[in-house]
């Protein structure tokens, strides 16, 4: 491993529904905050990556790499948009990591952004469904919650996972979101609220689903040498991995193990030279509550099939064995699709810097983020450490 890569600055907007704010306003706020946090200047930036899933469908705008550089006042700087559905942010982070690792760039700004409320919920849902196989899944009327419901049903059948266990994830993530001033939903929900919410795709209910959200997040990455010069508290990226699976759920060998997550996790653990037991906290992709169970299993925090039990035993709350989604996760923090993977990296950075306030994981030294695209066709896993 030739060069080290560190996070030297982070910044994000509050997540929510912002009728008075557009795409440009969101990403420039997040970007400016990150650059100020990193204490660098525009002239220091070698390149910009932007994770964004569907600006073409959501605001009618493509070509957002150049747009973001333009509105950040960085005309001339290399800029590229990166897309992998809901893991666009994680993928942008991976690309930025590679760009520094390659030796070509020293400081890279990597943002994620989605402006989802300029269209109707129905229209946004159609845009999101673009992550599924249009010819052989969406054509037949399956929805995104529907795909995760198919996984949930089979998981419940094969491993005895219960609706209550799945629902407890929403309860926990709302409790965490309540402590996060950036979260879309900063209030508690009870188990009864979740289990009595309206059915979306049986067995998944409304309160098992992440919301439609506007928001942006940005991190500044630097090579080890640069980081030491400009930053007092760099957070080191010890592993950055990407894996894929079949685009459609029906193409997989198993629908209850997210293979791309397991593969990316394994690779990231190898790069970081750590085992799952050494991870102090994780931000995982709970687009639907069942996805958090699939995530903790595929990442090796428990055995396959035991995720439900682990949740029921309270092992994933802040101050327990392995806190999961201290930020509130996608469920409570919100899910502005392209921004999600970057926002996860920001939570990891805050936790490792000791800046997570009321949701601080005590003694956190190593954290993991997992960002999934579609029903699991793309997955990125990053491992962060306070030590080099």
């Amino acid at each position: 491993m030739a060069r080290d890569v560190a996070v030297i600055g982070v910044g994000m907007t509050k997540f929510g529904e912002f009728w008075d704010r557009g795409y440009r306003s969101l990403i420039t706020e997040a970007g400016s905050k990150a650059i100020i946090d990193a204490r660098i200047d525009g002239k220091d930036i070698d390149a910009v990556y932007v994770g964004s899933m569907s600006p073409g469908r959501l605001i009618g705008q493509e070509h957002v790499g150049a747009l973001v550089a333009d509105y950040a006042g960085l005309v001339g700087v290399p800029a590229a948009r990166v897309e992998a559905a809901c893991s666009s942010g994680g993928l942008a982070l991976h690309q930025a990591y590679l760009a520094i690792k390659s030796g070509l760039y020293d400081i890279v700004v990597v943002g994620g952004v989605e402006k989802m409320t300029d269209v109707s919920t129905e229209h946004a849902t159609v845009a999101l469904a673009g992550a599924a196989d249009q010819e052989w899944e969406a054509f037949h009327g399956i929805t995104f919650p529907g795909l995760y419901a198919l996984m949930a049903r089979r998981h419940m059948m094969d491993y005895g996972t219960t609706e209550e266990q799945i629902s407890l994830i929403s309860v926990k993530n709302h409790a965490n979101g309540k402590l996060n001033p950036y979260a879309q939903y900063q209030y508690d929900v009870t188990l009864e609220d979740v289990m009595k919410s309206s059915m979306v795709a049986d067995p998944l209910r409304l309160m098992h689903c992440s919301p439609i959200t506007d928001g942006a997040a940005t991190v500044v990455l630097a090579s080890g040498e640069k980081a030491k010069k400009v930053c007092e508290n760099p957070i080191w990226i010890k592993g950055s991995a990407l894996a894929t699976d079949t685009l459609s759920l029906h193409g997989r060998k198993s629908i209850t193990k997210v293979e791309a997550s397991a593969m990316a996790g394994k690779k990231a653990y190898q790069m970081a030279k750590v085992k799952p037991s050494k991870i102090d906290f994780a931000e995982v992709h709970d687009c639907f509550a069942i996805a958090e169970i699939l995530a903790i299993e595929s990442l090796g925090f428990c055995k396959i099939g035991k995720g439900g039990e682990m949740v029921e035993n309270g092992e994933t709350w802040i101050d327990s064995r392995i806190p999961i989604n201290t930020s509130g996760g996608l469920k409570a923090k919100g899910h502005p699709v392209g921004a999600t993977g970057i926002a996860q990296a920001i939570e990891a950075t805050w936790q490792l810097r000791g800046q997570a306030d009321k949701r601080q994981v005590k003694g956190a030294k190593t954290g993991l983020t997992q960002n999934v695209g579609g029903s699991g066709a793309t997955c990125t896993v990053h491992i962060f450490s306070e030590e080099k």
Partner: protein
Amino acid sequence: MSKRIPLHWRLIPHRYRLLGSECKRCREKFFPKRTVCPNCRRRGQIEEVGFSGKGEIYSYTIIHVPSRGFEFLKPYVMALVKLTEGPLVTSQIVDCDPEEVDVGQKVMLTFRKISVDGSSGIIRYGYKFKPKTSLSL
């Protein structure tokens, strides 16, 4: 859903008659069709193959919040059907009470209208599955 006609038209044989692919080298069958065998890649010998349309429900969900164009069907059952030849297929399950659908249930192919583009757009047809015990054709 796009109104472009060729997007649906070129898949008609596969959607109407459940045609997929078989690799003559490794003998694995694929649905939907593939042009490259993921096991054998350049050494694979992909040929078109028809499926029997028999299978069983591997997993299912009842959709209460439908996709655009499927509103009039709600609630409707979507399933992964495991064909007897191996592959899983994403399909609607029809001709039954959604509450009576179950994993492991035997199902068979049927040909139905899938969706319509408004009052002047194309009507798309294709496969759905129904319980094997059903008397309807």
